[in-house]
Structures are given as structure tokens and as C-alpha cells.
């Protein structure tokens, strides 16, 4: 079940020509998740700072 | 029935509200052949798609000002305070708008399809389709416009266009049904059925939405 599906690291990247599709999708997914997490954390931080100023 | 009198009184002076959409429909139907090289059979290929989209757009424009003016000058508040049923009023108002825009547009669609296809029977069947679909579109865009009441009609259009897409699909299918002469009445009944649901539900939802606006 946990056998490495490729013979070499280069093959894992290349994936018989399909690598570009797989990895680009991965990058898009991770990037959008990352952006959303950082944006929300940043917004919360900003509001907290503002509230701190009031106090 | 007071509302009918009131609305006609207003629309008598506001010709752009109901004449505008009709003219836009007309212009789109004139613009379409200009984009195609003038060969009759080429014209017919996309004709009905353009027809349905033109109806969609003209109905979108017809609802542009349906509540905005009354909202801005305070008439809506006066209507709400009066005890008579608000949602019935909205339903009647939509009917008037349909009467002034939907019916002329449907007649025009009949004329244009006869001019393009030279097929009287087919064009005659387009007429009820146009009547029903224009009423459905009008109701949906009224819903959208009530949501974006004083924020311009574009927002309302964006928001309700997805809801109108199934109707376009049914219209497209019914043209195929017409051309191959299979179960066209079924499509008319389907549209009528959805219209009868929409006619009841939309005014109720819109009345709640407008109340939320006035709060």
C-alpha cells in the first residue's frame, strides 16, 4: 500500500508528462489555503490592535 | 385595484420605463442580423438564442426602476402602513409592468421570428413561449431588484441571473421540440407550472425583502 509509485525522484516530478498538471493544481490549492489563512489572521490581528488602542 | 390606477397614472408620464426595454429588445433583434453575413439559413441558426437573451435583457431593464423611486420618495412606507396586503400589491405591480413590456416584446418576437423563419406556425408557437418566459424573467428580476433596491440594477441582475438560467435551458429545449414536433405542449405546461409557483412566491419574498430595506 505504501510503495513509492515512481522509480526515481525525477520521475515523481515528471509523472510521464502529467506532472505539470498535478503539481500546478497542488500549488494552486495550497496557495489559496495559505492566502485565506493569512488574510483572516491578519485581519483579526488588525482589529485586536485597534481595540487595544481604545482601551 | 387602486394600485392599478396609481401605477398607470405614474407610468403614463414615465414612458422610458416601459418603452425603453421594448426599444432595447428591438435594437438587439436588429443588431443580430448585422453581425451575421446576410444569408437566410445562417441567420436562423442562432436566431432563437438571441431572441431569448434579448427577452431576458429587456425584462432586466424593465425592472430597473420598479421600487427604487417609491423607496426614495417615501411612497413605499405609506403603502406598508396601509392595511391592504402588500404582497398582492407587488404582484399586481409586476403584472402591470409585464402588461406594458412583456406583451409588446412577445408580439415583437412573433413578428421577428416570422420575418426570419418565414414559418407562420412556428412563429405563432413562439408567442406563448415569449409571453410566459417574459413574465417569469420579470418576476425573477423584480426579486433581484428588490434585493439591490437603491444600489443600482446591475447588482440585482448579477444576483438573479443564475436563477433565470434554467428557464433559458427549457426555452432552448422547447425550440428543438418545436422543430421536430415532439411534445411542445409539455414544455408550455412546464413553463406555466413554474410561472404559477413563481407568481405566488416572488411577491411574498419581495414583500419581506422590502420590509427589511425599510427597517
Amino acid at each position: 500500500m505504501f510503495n513509492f509509485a515512481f522509480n526515481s525522484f525525477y520521475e515523481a516530478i515528471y509523472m510521464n508528462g502529467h506532472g505539470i498538471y498535478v503539481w500546478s493544481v497542488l500549488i494552486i490549492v495550497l496557495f489559496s489555503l495559505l492566502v485565506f489563512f493569512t488574510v483572516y489572521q491578519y485581519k483579526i490581528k488588525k482589529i485586536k490592535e485597534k481595540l487595544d488602542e481604545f482601551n | 385595484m387602486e394600485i392599478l390606477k396609481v401605477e398607470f397614472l405614474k407610468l403614463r408620464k414615465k414612458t422610458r420605463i416601459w418603452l425603453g426595454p421594448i426599444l432595447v429588445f428591438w435594437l438587439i433583434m436588429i443588431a443580430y442580423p448585422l453581425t451575421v453575413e446576410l444569408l437566410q439559413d445562417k441567420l436562423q441558426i442562432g436566431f432563437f438564442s438571441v431572441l431569448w437573451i434579448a427577452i431576458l435583457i429587456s425584462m432586466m431593464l424593465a425592472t430597473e426602476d420598479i421600487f427604487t423611486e417609491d423607496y426614495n420618495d417615501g411612497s413605499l412606507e405609506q403603502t406598508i402602513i396601509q392595511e391592504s396586503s402588500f404582497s398582492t400589491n407587488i404582484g399586481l405591480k409586476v403584472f402591470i409592468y409585464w402588461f406594458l413590456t412583456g406583451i409588446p416584446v412577445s408580439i415583437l418576437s412573433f413578428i421577428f421570428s416570422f420575418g426570419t423563419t418565414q414559418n407562420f406556425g412556428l412563429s405563432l408557437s413562439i408567442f406563448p413561449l415569449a409571453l410566459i418566459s417574459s413574465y417569469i424573467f420579470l418576476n425573477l428580476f423584480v426579486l433581484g431588484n428588490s434585493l439591490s433596491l437603491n444600489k443600482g440594477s446591475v447588482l440585482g441582475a448579477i444576483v438573479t441571473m443564475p436563477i433565470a438560467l434554467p428557464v433559458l435551458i427549457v426555452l432552448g429545449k422547447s425550440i428543438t421540440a418545436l422543430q421536430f414536433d415532439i411534445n411542445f405542449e409539455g414544455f408550455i405546461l412546464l413553463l406555466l407550472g413554474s410561472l404559477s409557483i413563481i407568481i405566488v412566491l416572488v411577491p411574498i419574498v419581495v414583500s419581506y425583502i422590502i420590509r427589511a430595506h425599510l427597517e
Partner: protein
Amino acid sequence: MTDNSLITAKTISYKINENKLFHNLSFELGEGCALLIKGKNGSGKSTLLRIILGITVPTKGNIYKAASIQICYLGHKNALKSYLTMRDNIDLMQLKNHKELNYYLDLLSLKKHLDVTVSSLSFGQQKKLALLRVFLNTSKLLILDEPFVGLDDATHEQLTNFLSNELIMGKGLIFTSHIPCEIKADSLVLIN
């Protein structure tokens, strides 16, 4: 709640975007009584009127109205159609009291402008036209938001007399005004 009360408010509170406008407000209005709502700008006078009307829902509390009560309301917005003539606008108001229409048109000296579009009337004249709703009302309760703004002295006096008369006839009146007037009224002051 007494028998002849037109409006009863029980512990109503209202806040908008977490700004508290008023808290636990209670009052009662009987027949022939007037209530003047006072307060600074932005203290929620108009909002309170709209809550009484039932347009705005209070955050907490309830408003009880006498059964099947008719309300005549005049707000900041005149509910006039600027592109129609005065005559058409009067038609739009759907007044039920036609007998006295001529009398009040004379009294407010509006008669000669009947076929003029509202947009070309002055602010005061538009206000007077809107006041026809009040003068020709058939309601039991009048709710007026700043009715005296923009009126000349004569009209001010006519409106005061009219409203005092209505009170004697046993109607209810709730209004806001920062212009002093001689209507005998209890006042309710809104403090933030």
C-alpha cells in the same frame, strides 16, 4: 393597558450596528392625547416613530396597537412624485375625505398651482401638498415627523389649530419637532 389607549409601548429597546439608541422605553397614548418626542440629532426620534408605525422592528419589547387602527403618517420623505402635477399627486394620495379638499386647497393657497408639476414648486409648497394627507386624514392616530419644518407662519398656525382640534375630537398624536409649537402635549425626551 387601559381601554381607550391607542398605542402602548412596553420596554422597547433598539440598537443599530451595536449602537444603542434607547433602552427599555415604555409609554402609553390614549385618545385625545399628544406625545412630543424630543431629543438631539441622531437620538433616534425618527426611528422611534418608525417603530411605532411597525416599519422597524425593535430589538426588544413590543408595541401594542388598538384593534384595526388607521394611522396617518408624514415622514421626512414627502411621498410626492416630482414628475407629476399636483392634481395627479392628490389622486395618488387616495384621500377618502373629498368634501373638504377644496376648502384646504384654498386655505393653503395651493389651488392655482393644481396643474403645475411638483418639481417646479418650492419646498414649502411641496410640504403643504404633503400636509394634505394630514389635513384630510380619516385615521384615528397621527404620526408626524417634523411637521412644522419649512412652513410659513400662517400655515404653522393653521396646522397647530388643526392638530389641537383633532385632539379635542379624540384622536391621538405622536410627533417630533424642534420648532416650538402650542400643542398641549406630553413630552418624551430621548437621551443617549
